[in-house]
């Protein structure tokens, strides 16, 4: 089994920012976006998210799988939750509203009408959900494609996490290919003993039990490895004092700019919502007028 990271080295605007600044922006965006249900603000954030997304210059081909996943999620949220069951408001959409089919939908060839309580307000809310989830997704979907997995340890150290936690990250990335290779060996070794990976049916319990001959050896072998790894680290004085991180991240002017922008974005959002009391769910006048 071969594990490859989604990340590729490429020259891009996003790539010119320090990873720490990018994390700060991403979380500032997440917190800001979750403050609003007002489409006017959400549109701004949505545009900002996609400007950010495209600045990574990752071709769609690579991210297709992630977006399929996001759309699938949105579909459930919107179609099932907001449109069909009508619960999607989560207390945001006020009770009542303008029903789309006040007389029900005629069922062809019968005299019956199907009564479906969908309101224009809920449809509008669905649009807001698309903007909000879409924007947040854009900011976070791009991370694996644009950030070198091996920079995680030093990045999180740089963000103020303790040495040991940050080093755990480094080490985890180091062991991913090793464990993937070991897993491949175990699969082969068990197949040589007549084990068939594609199970011949059976119930769900049997299916899970069938993974034991793969999961148990790989796990125990890794734990045994861990004992030696820990010795190797102790022998080279791990954790006996503050650690030097060989790779050093340095902020440049554009990073300060991005961080300043992130803080501003966050403060502005909070000010709008808690200071000006704006940003709650809002249905445009023209929509209401059009309906009436």
């Amino acid at each position, binding site marked *: *089994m071969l*594990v490859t*990271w*989604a990340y590729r080295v490429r020259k891009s605007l996003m790539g010119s920012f320090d990873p720490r600044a990018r994390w700060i922006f991403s979380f500032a965006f*997440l917190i800001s976006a*979750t403050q609003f249900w007002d489409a006017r603000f959400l549109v701004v954030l949505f545009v900002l998210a996609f400007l950010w997304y495209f600045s990574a210059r990752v071709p769609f081909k*690579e991210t297709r*799988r*992630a977006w399929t*996943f996001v759309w699938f*999620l949105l579909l*459930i*949220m919107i179609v*099932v939750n907001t449109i069909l*069951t009508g*619960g*999607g*408001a*989560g*207390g*945001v959409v006020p009770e009542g509203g303008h029903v789309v089919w006040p007389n029900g939908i005629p069922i062809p060839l019968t005299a019956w009408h199907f009564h479906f309580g969908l309101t224009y307000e809920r449809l509008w*809310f669905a649009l807001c*959900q698309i903007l*909000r*989830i879409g924007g*947040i*997704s854009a900011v*976070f*979907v*791009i*991370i*694996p494609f644009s950030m070198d997995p091996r920079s995680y340890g030093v990045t999180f150290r740089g963000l103020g996490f303790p040495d*040991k936690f940050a080093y*755990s990250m480094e*080490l*985890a*990335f180091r*062991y*991913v290919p*090793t*464990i*993937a290779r070991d*897993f491949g060996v175990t699969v082969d070794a068990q197949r040589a003993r007549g084990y068939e990976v594609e199970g011949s049916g059976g119930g*769900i*319990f049997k*299916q899970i039990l069938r*993974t034991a001959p*793969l*999961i148990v050896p790989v*796990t*125990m072998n*890794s*734990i045994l490895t*861990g004992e030696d*790894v*820990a010795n190797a*680290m*102790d022998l080279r004085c*791990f*954790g006996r004092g503050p650690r030097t991180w060989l790779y050093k991240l340095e902020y440049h002017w554009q990073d300060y700019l991005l961080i300043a922008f992130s803080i501003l974005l966050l403060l502005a959002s909070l000010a709008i919502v808690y200071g000006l009391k704006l940003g709650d769910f809002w249905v445009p006048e023209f929509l209401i007028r059009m309906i009436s």
Partner: protein
Amino acid sequence: MQNKSLWKFGTREVVYSAIGAALYAVLGIATNFLQLPSAGNVSFRPAVAIPMFFGIAFGPVVGFIAGFLGNIIADLVSGYGFWVWWDLGNGLMGLVAGLMAFSFVGFKTQGTLLKAELFVILGVVVGMGVASLSEMWVSGADINTVIFGNFIPAAVANLVNGLILVPILMIAYDAVVSRSGK
């Protein structure tokens, strides 16, 4: 081993956190054989047993990092993005299960295994509960959707896998421990 502090984080804990995370990621991708199509972020992964087992064997901090970081890494490899509240939920599963670490003698006595099953249930409920509730905040779903669309499928899938595989791993690990004589 008995008088070990629950929250200690020394070299061994650093190593087992890292190995647990790498294992969870790799096995999660490799054994993700049954996708439950009805549930958003939920998939049926036998590997969820890993963070909970690592929690029970090496403590709550190790369990947390194995789950949290493992889930992040799995998404980094599959290119699914970064979903911090689900990562956190996975971490909490390992952390809560890990609260029972060092409180027992022998990994395969019936008492220990029973206790482990209990903590697996607790871990899954807390972890998936927190992650699902975050969906309300992020996506604006209502409580029913969150319970039926996220929490129940995720919790059931993880419970079934955890309840079956965690004891199997504990029994195997008992032999490893007896060999090293520590």
